[in-house]
């Protein structure tokens, strides 16, 4: 290892660790022989896609395995003791005192029955390191250090009384309370919106630096890990791909797999100028029950272009899609499609209008009936809209499969027998089967791994070129917006903040919210967070 050997003594040394899990009546390898060395005060980034075994490895670093998993071989030397050989009773002396854990979902990981401060200090008080009063006082100090509002009193609240971003910071305080030697951060910001993520990241990084605590930071997001880690280890299929210090990993990755993790960020579309309006929303208001969620939303979409609607959770971007499709009739305003007004509710619209607007969902898993074969799924729109049956239909299904780069063997498969990327491709084929003019893509790539995302985006772009499709692309991910869009609509709290050509929106000057949103998206630069924070402090 090249980096930071001056930081301190070796704290954690894992050798040839193997962890397996029980499923389908047999044991499967999850971690297959990983080595790891971490010195005092160092932060290691552990990165990989879903199923890479990174969470399992992170827990195993504490000597902990989830129910149904076990350590099969290897050593976990923590400060000279091999945790792999100890019983849970002995390991408990280390857990919560010398090594602590920050979970992904803080909302689910706090016990709803106890006050935050009691949970923050529980292990510190139990170990006898501090008296209850001292531990409480110290916790209030940590809350302040993590810039939580009202640090003196926030601890008296219960978990459901504070927001997600605040809970994540309280959990960091809880991890820091016993002043551990090692903290495991397991995707702590994944569930947060970008603007919240920045605040939590800054707070966590600052406190880890202040106490010079060693940490393992697990994430699938390279830009995030670049801000936190001294060095990065890339995992895939339970094995190490490569390890290097953060700067060299970002500038010169060695392995092809690591390079491919960068790829979606380099994907860029040549921007199309908007022409004649194809879909136009004028002054749309919409509500769920009595709660108004869209306020005077107007959006123009030109034929053959891609319009990205971007915003955080609660911005109303998905609601906009529901209004366009007729699932949620608007309370005011109008939707015009190809020069004609669309009726508000789905049941009033003509079959032809329904055919021309198709939708692709975020979770391909739930967007396909698990009891229907691929042939049935793609074949139904052919039959329903176009009246194609029999051999004609099977021929057309094959053509469609070819368009999405899958072969005819898939016709008989059930969705459960497909991978994530394949499922999303079938959903695309189902939309194409209707021969639509407009496709609404609702976060179609956000549930997928990075490499698979790239494949799907490329496919969508190719299909647009070949078939002249118009896309309304709903996403929260700025890099996807940069990759695929021609025009961009920024939404916040049910209102359109800004819209225009991509280059214009991404160029300053920005409205306040766009500025906040764009600046909050982590970049692949280890100094990004530092620069951002000093910039924001000055302003």
């Amino acid at each position, binding site marked *: 290892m090249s980096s930071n050997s001056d930081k301190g003594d070796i704290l954690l040394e894992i050798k040839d660790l193997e962890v397996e899990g*029980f499923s389908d009546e047999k044991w499967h390898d999850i971690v297959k022989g990983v080595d790891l060395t971490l010195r005092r005060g160092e932060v290691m980034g552990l990165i990989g896609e879903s199923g890479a075994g990174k969470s399992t490895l992170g827990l195993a670093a504490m000597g902990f395995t989830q*129910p149904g998993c076990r350590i099969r071989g290897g050593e976990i030397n923590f400060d000279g003791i091999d945790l792999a050989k100890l019983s849970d009773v002995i390991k408990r002396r280390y857990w919560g005192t010398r090594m602590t854990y920050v979970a992904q979902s803080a909302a689910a990981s706090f016990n709803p029955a106890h006050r935050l401060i009691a949970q923050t200090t529980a292990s510190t008080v139990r170990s006898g390191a501090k008296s209850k009063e001292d531990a409480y006082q110290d916790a209030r100090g940590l809350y302040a250090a993590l810039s939580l509002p009202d640090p003196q009193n926030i601890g008296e609240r219960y978990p459901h009384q504070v927001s997600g971003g605040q809970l994540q910071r309280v959990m960091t305080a809880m991890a820091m309370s016993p002043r551990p030697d090692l903290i495991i951060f397991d995707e702590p910001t994944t569930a947060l919106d970008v603007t919240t993520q920045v605040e939590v990241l800054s707070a966590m990084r600052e406190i880890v630096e202040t106490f010079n605590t060693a940490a393992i930071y697990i994430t699938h997001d390279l830009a995030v890990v670049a801000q936190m880690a001294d060095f990065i280890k890339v995992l895939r299929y339970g094995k190490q791909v490569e390890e290097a210090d953060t700067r060299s990993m970002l500038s010169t990755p060695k392995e092809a797999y690591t390079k491919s993790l960068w790829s979606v960020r380099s994907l860029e579309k040549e921007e199309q100028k908007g022409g004649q309006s194809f879909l136009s929303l004028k002054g749309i208001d919409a509500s769920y029950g009595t709660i108004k969620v869209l306020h005077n939303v107007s959006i123009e979409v030109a034929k053959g272009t891609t319009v990205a609607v971007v915003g955080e959770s609660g911005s109303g971007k998905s609601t906009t899609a529901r209004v366009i499709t007729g699932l949620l009739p608007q309370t005011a305003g109008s939707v015009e499609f190809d020069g004609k007004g669309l009726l508000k509710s789905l049941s009033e619209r003509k*079959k032809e209008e329904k055919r021309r607007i198709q*939708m692709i969902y975020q979770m391909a898993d739930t967007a396909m009936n698990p009891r229907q074969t691929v042939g049935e799924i793609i074949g139904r729109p052919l039959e329903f809209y176009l009246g194609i049956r029999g051999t004609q239909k099977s021929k057309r299904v094959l053509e469609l499969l070819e368009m999405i780069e899958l072969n005819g063997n898939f016709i008989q498969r059930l969705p459960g027998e497909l991978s994530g990327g394949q499922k999303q491709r079938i959903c695309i084929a189902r939309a194409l089967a209707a021969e639509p003019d407009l496709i609404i893509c609702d976060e179609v790539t956000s549930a997928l791994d990075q490499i698979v995302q790239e494949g799907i985006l490329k496919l969508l772009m190719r299909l647009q070129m070949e078939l002249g499709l118009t896309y309304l692309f709903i996403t929260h991910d700025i890099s996807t917006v940069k990759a695929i869009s021609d025009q961009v609509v920024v939404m916040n709290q049910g209102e359109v903040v800004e819209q225009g050509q991509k280059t214009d929106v991404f160029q300053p000057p920005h409205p306040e919210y766009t500025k906040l949103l764009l600046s909050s998206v982590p970049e692949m630069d280890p100094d990004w967070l530092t620069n951002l924070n000093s910039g924001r402090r000055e302003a």
Partner: protein
Amino acid sequence: MTENSDNYSAAGEVGAVLEKRTFWTRLKIDMKKSPWTARFGMLIILFYAIMAIFAPFIAPYGEAQVFATPYAPWSSEFIFGTDQIGRDIFSRLIYGARNTVGIAVATTLLAFLIGGAFGLIAAIDRSYIDQAFSRLVDVFMAIPSLIFALVLLSIFGSTVLNLIVIIAVLDSTRVFRLTRAVAINVVVMDYVEAARLRGEGLGWIMRKEILPNIMPPLIAEFGLRFCFVFLSIAALSFLGVGIQPPTADWGSMVRENASLIQFAQYDLKAGLTPLLPASAIALLTVAVNFVVDWFLHKTSGLGDEQ
């Protein structure tokens, strides 16, 4: 890097093939992995089915055929002796499979027809119809169903048809709740929304999108409800307000021969006689429960985390 070094491209991802299994190979694998309890259960159910279907050919005597000696002891002529008016108990046990089980199956089917249909409608509709049905069912379930059945039977009288309808209606409330609950989980799925967006009619959505996906829990529930109905009818018959003589029925057979148990000290076989129909009931419910338990374990994915 490892053996997968070329596999990260979209093409590799597309080419990745997960195992494809047919229905029969799946069934074979399931059966191979099934625990002894489930196999035992299936065997017993098969046995009962044969008894019920071929009762007239298997039973040595008629269902209501009366012989001269009441309470005859176990012998080669009357394997399990005769009852209080001289009917062959062994024959009545076999006919009981047909009557008791048959009535319970019919009742359960009716309960599923009513509860399932209304449950599906409520789940899809989610408006005032759903509200009305759900509140009504809440009220029905606020009274223990056995008590409710007793009240209704006291009004309408104990005929087989009344029994079937009353128990089925009372039990359909539970089927309604389950169907509604599982169907609501399916109705919110994107594929149902996709079908609605496509413009599919209600019938198609119910038949093709929802029903196939709620079948596993409903099948399991059918087993459990059958046990419940079967035990309820047996209890009512035992209390003398269910299936009426001379129909051979296990619940009433227990009641009719109960006094024999006092003689167990002198003749153990006689003492065991009232337990025969009772154990016939118990054995079937145990068998169904074992099969359902395995089925639930299998379909809920619980089998993966042992």
